[in-house]
């Protein structure tokens, strides 16, 4: 951090030790397909995909395994050719280790792409909607970790009349270097993907924001983008969490996205470099997203580096391919050290959003004891959202979740800066995650209760109406009956009367 930046630059965020090299400088390795792949059906934001294959069915690499379900979901494809061995539950790559539905593939060793996949020589000739459709068909999701279905973002950008596409090459998480490596090695493919996304989203220009601790990636991207005026490479200071959407937009465009709104409302959309590469593959070769580049790193890993891994490979197999662990890992993480998930064990599958697998050695992941908050406000200064983490945590600890929400809990992006700088080692992110979960559950319960109440009300109204109608009917019938009886009585009386009259008339009629 330069002197000027220290005093006049960004005041939020942190400068963690990046641990990116030497892993970032090692050449990319390609992991051979393991014998079995466990392809999770819930590896994107939104509803889990619906299986489209049967057990025992033979599939080729790239064949559809599962269809998207509902408006926000993504398709899932076979990462290799082989046999569908099972469709069932496996442990999810999540701290809970809870089960998730997955398709288990037995690889046949051929790894043969499906012949149905069609290459496209000039995707720019396709209409934008067709590009979105093909991206959706390829199951492309945000590769930065958020795993939002990319096609939806492209389509909605078009609707929102987005003018600027921001390409996130920030990779501000420590230890990770897969985006860096991808930009160095495949800048051409990325720039092609960016231009396709420009075409699909209707944006006029693309800005690729790359942290200045990746000079090789910046150079490679500049070279690849040089011939295309609409793609600009813009180095940004290395600072965590500059790769976060709102912060990246702010630094690159000066625009501040209002709370609760999407970047599209400000005419901006953000896609990751990995996503650009996946879009390029999907459009140029018709290849769905079935493998990804991820970083294997951490003090316990013998040969850290970047590896192309088929989706569905077990973390255990990936680590074994990377050369195994020199020591028992103190912590196993999927993702980066700031926002990644701590894994309960290594028998969980790689998913589309996995940017890294970290096996941290003891010293890197010391388990500290939580102490009392001394209100040093390190967390307030570090928070990239301008929140008061210490006050929010105080409310959460006291059980006042609404109070925490009023302080801006919902604006928290869970970047982890506060917990990183906390000298009392308070697990602030955990407090906030707990509170957000509890609030969401409360909201769901409230919605359910509201729905149930509405139903109950409708039912009681219906019963009342039915009772009323029944009573009315009964009353009407009774009235009718009575009227009929009265009429009968009247008519009989009348007839009696008329008979009598007739009689009288007959008797007394003067001649």
């Amino acid at each position, binding site marked *: 951090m330069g002197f000027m930046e220290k005093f006049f630059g960004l005041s939020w965020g942190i400068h963690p030790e990046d641990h990116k090299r030497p892993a970032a400088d090692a050449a990319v390795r390609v992991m051979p397909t393991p014998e079995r792949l466990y392809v999770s059906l819930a590896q994107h934001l939104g509803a889990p995909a619906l299986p489209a294959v049967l057990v025992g069915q033979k599939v080729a690499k790239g064949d559809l395994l599962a269809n998207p379900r509902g408006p926000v979901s993504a398709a899932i494809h076979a990462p290799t050719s082989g046999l569908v061995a099972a469709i069932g539950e496996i442990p999810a790559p999540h701290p809970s280790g809870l089960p998730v539905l997955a398709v288990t593939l037995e690889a046949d060793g051929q790894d043969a792409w499906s012949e149905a996949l069609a290459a496209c020589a000039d995707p720019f000739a396709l209409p934008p909607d067709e590009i979105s459709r093909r991206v959706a068909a390829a199951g492309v999701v945000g590769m930065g970790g958020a795993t939002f279905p990319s096609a939806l973002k492209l389509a909605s950008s078009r609707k929102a009349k987005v003018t600027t596409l921001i390409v996130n090459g920030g990779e501000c998480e420590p230890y990770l270097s897969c985006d860096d490596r991808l930009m160095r090695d495949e800048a051409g493919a990325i720039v092609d993907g960016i231009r396709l996304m420009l075409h699909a989203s209707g944006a006029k220009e693309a800005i690729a924001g790359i942290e200045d601790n990746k000079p090789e990636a910046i150079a490679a991207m500049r070279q690849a983008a040089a011939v295309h005026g609409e793609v600009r490479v813009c180095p940004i200071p290395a600072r965590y969490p500059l790769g976060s959407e709102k912060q990246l937009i702010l630094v690159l465009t000066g625009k501040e996205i209002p709370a609760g*709104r999407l970047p599209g409302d400000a005419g901006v959309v953000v896609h990751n470099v990995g996503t650009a590469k996946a879009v390029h593959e999907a459009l140029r070769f018709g290849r769905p997203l079935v493998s990804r580049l991820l970083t294997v790193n951490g003090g316990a890993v013998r040969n850290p580096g970047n590896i192309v891994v088929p989706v569905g490979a077990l973390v255990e197999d990936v680590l074994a391919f990377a050369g195994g662990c020199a020591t028992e890992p103190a912590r196993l993480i999927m993702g980066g050290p700031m926002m990644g998930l701590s894994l309960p064990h290594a028998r969980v599958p790689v998913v589309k959003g996995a940017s890294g697998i970290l096996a941290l050695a003891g010293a890197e992941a010391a388990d500290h004891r939580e102490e009392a908050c001394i*209100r040093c406000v390190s967390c307030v200064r570090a928070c990239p959202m301008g929140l008061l983490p210490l006050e929010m945590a105080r409310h959460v600890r006291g059980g006042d979740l609404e109070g925490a929400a009023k302080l801006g809990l919902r604006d928290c992006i869970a970047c982890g800066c506060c917990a990183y700088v906390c000298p009392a080692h308070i697990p602030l992110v955990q407090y906030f995650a707990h509170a957000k979960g509890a609030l969401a559950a409360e909201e769901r319960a409230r919605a359910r209760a509201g729905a149930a109440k509405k139903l109950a009300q409708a039912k009681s109204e219906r019963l009342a109406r039915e009772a009323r109608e029944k009573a009315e009917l009964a009353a009407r019938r009774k009235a009718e009956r009575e009227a009929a009886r009265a009429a009968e009585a009247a008519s009989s009386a009348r007839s009696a009367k008329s008979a009598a009259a007739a009689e009288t008339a007959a008797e007394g009629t003067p001649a």
Partner: protein
Amino acid sequence: MSVADYRAVRTFASPHAHGGGEIRRTMRRVQLALTPATLFGFWLYGWPAFLLWLITLLSVLVFEFMSLRLAGEKDAGRILGDGSALLTGWLLAMTLPPWSPWWVGTLGAFIAIVIGKQVFGGLGQNVFNPAMVARVALLISFPLQLTAWVAPLPLASLAAPGFIEGLRITLGQIPLLDAMTSASLLGFAKTELSRGVGLAQALAAGHAPQLSWLGVRAGSLGESSALLILAGGVFLLATGVIRWQAPVGVLAGTLVPAIIAHAFAPEAYLDAGSHLLSGALLLGAFFIATDYVTSPVTDLGKLVFGLGVGLTTWVIRSLGGYPEGVAFAILFMNALTPIIDHCVKPRVLGRTWSGRPVSLAAPPDARGGSRHGA
């Protein structure tokens, strides 16, 4: 080894990295910053000063340990190691008259730790600065002992008490002779003013600011050397332990009114230099108003807090009954801290100061003071 056997003992919430900051390191840095002024105090006032400091520190540790055990804390020793109690005791000792008897230190330690801190729930929970609570409680309860300032008798000088004599002074066996005591500048000015003597005449004789910069004057154990306290403050600023807002606020809050009042009525109001260099102003500005626990959380809040402390200090010193007002001013502003925190909150990214989502039309700078600017 194979990771196939790996089983997490437990899973952790992110982040899985830590910056390495520790409470004890922060406390150690503040103690380090206090050391030069403290050593100078020992040299200036001799063995009794050192003994008083030692007794106060030992007392706070004993009281902290006992309180923690009483609260059912099994790991009291580890918590004691965070250094916060030690720092409280150290700050209290700095504000005491250097030749106070031992029980002043011990009683002060009891008030600070038990009443000022542990009763509220321990570290981080107290509303008032414990050292200042003790200092004020002692001053009100024992005004005589707490204003018995001795004239400096540097260790090397012949009249300085030796170790045994110093021990007897601290144990209260030698009553302080009037000849040894001397009024502090602020106390002297207050007395003269109340006698109707103008300041120009009263201070004509012995007012020598350069001595105050060095600290060779009658005063509390650790408040005398402006230069060394300032050095400690600069060290804390440079290491990022404290921010500039509170100290600047305190100094501005006292000195600006002092300059104005002195310009209009030099006979009735002390000059800014005297305010700056006597009493606890500098110590208060850099070491007490910057206390994390009892000051506001935002930078702006800290500035408001500092200004409040400074202004209250000047008001008490100039218009109140006490010659010195830093401790009172800090307690007063401590009480206002929750209100300041309620009123002064940072702006959330994507929201206006009032908490509504920002509008897309106006650029962020037009919304006034953004710390998010690129």
